């Protein structure tokens, strides 16, 4: 069930100049979270931030009542969320949205770019429990933007591409050798910048590989009430916050 709950800032782990893990704790129990779910966070003490900010749930610790988010600073709210003092109260609506589907796949490819890696620790863990072989492929401009590889390592093989070649293969994710045998995967999960997702979805389509994308449309309510976050699908406009954020790429009316 969706819930609105008070948390407090527990700690930060900064990963590079603009990316950090933010861990929150609560006195109450944590609602069950599925891979792909997100939260709407009320950024405290931020004069310029009016609406909540949608952020994927990176990790959850039910026993210690912790939620962790992986956040990239792109503006006012994501900056402020990185500057709070431990103990600062922070109000969260969660878990929101649908989640990735897992249906007896054997070998899957997970592609992440930017803050798009956020939902994939939870997904990786679920896939591992189901003994599904998992490959992670992360794309970025440069080495310092590829983070948390040691965490993802626990759940599968980790590959990378960087535009400047400073880590992994040089180029875009779709230029990685793994794409030469893309039909070997029975599913691709992807979250990242739109052009990356569209390029991957196109290849997936051509090779008839099932592909689930997680969208990051701008949101006002996060619960299907305002109809601001829509994406065009083969069956009309759908809300990314409730019908998504995860869509099968075939459903999306992307011009690709």
């Amino acid at each position, binding site marked *: *069930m*969706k*819930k*609105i709950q008070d948390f407090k800032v527990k700690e930060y782990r900064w990963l590079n100049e603009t990316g950090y893990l933010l861990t929150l704790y609560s006195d109450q129990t944590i609602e069950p979270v599925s891979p792909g779910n997100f939260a709407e966070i*009320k950024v405290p003490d931020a004069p*310029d*931030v*009016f*609406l*909540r900010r949608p952020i994927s749930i990176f990790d959850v610790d039910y026993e210690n009542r912790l939620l962790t988010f992986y956040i990239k600073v792109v503006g006012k709210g994501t900056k402020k969320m990185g500057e709070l003092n431990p103990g600062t109260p922070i109000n969260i*609506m969660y878990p929101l949205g649908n989640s990735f589907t897992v249906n007896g796949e054997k070998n899957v490819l997970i592609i992440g770019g930017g803050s798009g890696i956020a939902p994939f620790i939870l997904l990786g863990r679920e896939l591992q429990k189901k003994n599904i072989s998992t490959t992670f492929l992360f794309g970025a401009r440069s080495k310092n933007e590829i983070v948390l590889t040691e965490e993802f390592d626990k759940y599968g093989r980790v590959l990378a591409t960087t535009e400047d070649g400073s880590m992994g293969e040089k180029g875009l994710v779709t230029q990685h050798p793994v794409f030469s045998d893309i039909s070997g995967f029975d599913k691709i999960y992807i979250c990242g910048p739109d052009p990356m997702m569209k390029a991957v979805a196109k290849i997936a389509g051509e090779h008839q590989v099932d592909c689930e994308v997680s969208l990051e*449309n*701008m*949101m*006002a*309510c*996060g*619960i*299907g*009430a*305002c*109809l*601001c*976050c*829509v*994406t*065009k699908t083969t069956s*009309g*406009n759908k809300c990314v916050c*409730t019908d998504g954020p995860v869509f099968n790429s075939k459903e999306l009316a992307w011009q690709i």
Partner: protein
Amino acid sequence: MADLTVKIKDLVLKNPVTTASGTFGFGEEFADFIDLNLLGGIFVKGLTLKLREGNDYPRMAETASGMLNAVGLQNKGIDYFISDIYPRIKDLDTEIIPNVNGSTVEEYIEVTEKLNEVEGINAIELNISCPNVKEGGMAFGVSCPSAIAVTDAVRKVFDKTLIVKLSPNVTDITEIAKGVEGAGADAVSLVNTFLAMAIDAKTRKPVLSTVTGGLSGPAIKPIALRMVWQVYHAVKVPVIGLGGIMNATDAIEFMLAGAKAIQVGTANFIDPQVSVKIIEGIETYCKENNISSVSELTGALEIS
């Protein structure tokens, strides 16, 4: 405890706190967060005769203490509402008030005629102030003759409480209010959103797909409050006030200015429980100020 009931013509609300159209879906979206039965009423998402896809994404921009939207009345059409949505919410112990839209007077009439037949629906809100559609919408609400024409036409086919929602994008809102009162409106609600715009200086493009959109939220509250006060002194029918209400104090200010009931809009996005908190806050205010009936607050502003 104070009597919180308010009457808008034949419509009885158990308390003056309702939720604004387009900001509360069909109520269900908030069922996880609050007990919907506590609300005075729910103005549901704007309805049109036929399914509407609405405008292209992006439809939203955040602004200082507010937001722009350009949803453009996305909805599945009146028939779907009556057959599929309404049955799910009709047993709630609160008033469900449809928000009626059209590109032409005929469309307004057709939608209203259908709603007139629906048992349990005791009122409609005629939206002549949507700034986000190319045809109809706000065009009806910013000219007195057309506001009168559409109100008059709808009045003829609707037997229950008719609320007309006014646009703030006018020189003199009292003129339109008096016009629709004369044409048979049982109440007016105000304000709808202000026509506004956001630009991304980096890309040099408008943020919204439609270039302009409607501004809502606390940014507009002082203007909305002024309009409610003006309209309260210009018409005899009840006024329903809205525009940037974020808490009980805001709600009380609107009532003091002349509102008999209020609608909570954008605030629902920031706190899905805010409507219930406002009811509680009004109760507390009444208790602390020895007010026995909440209607005493309406228009109680003291001007020396």
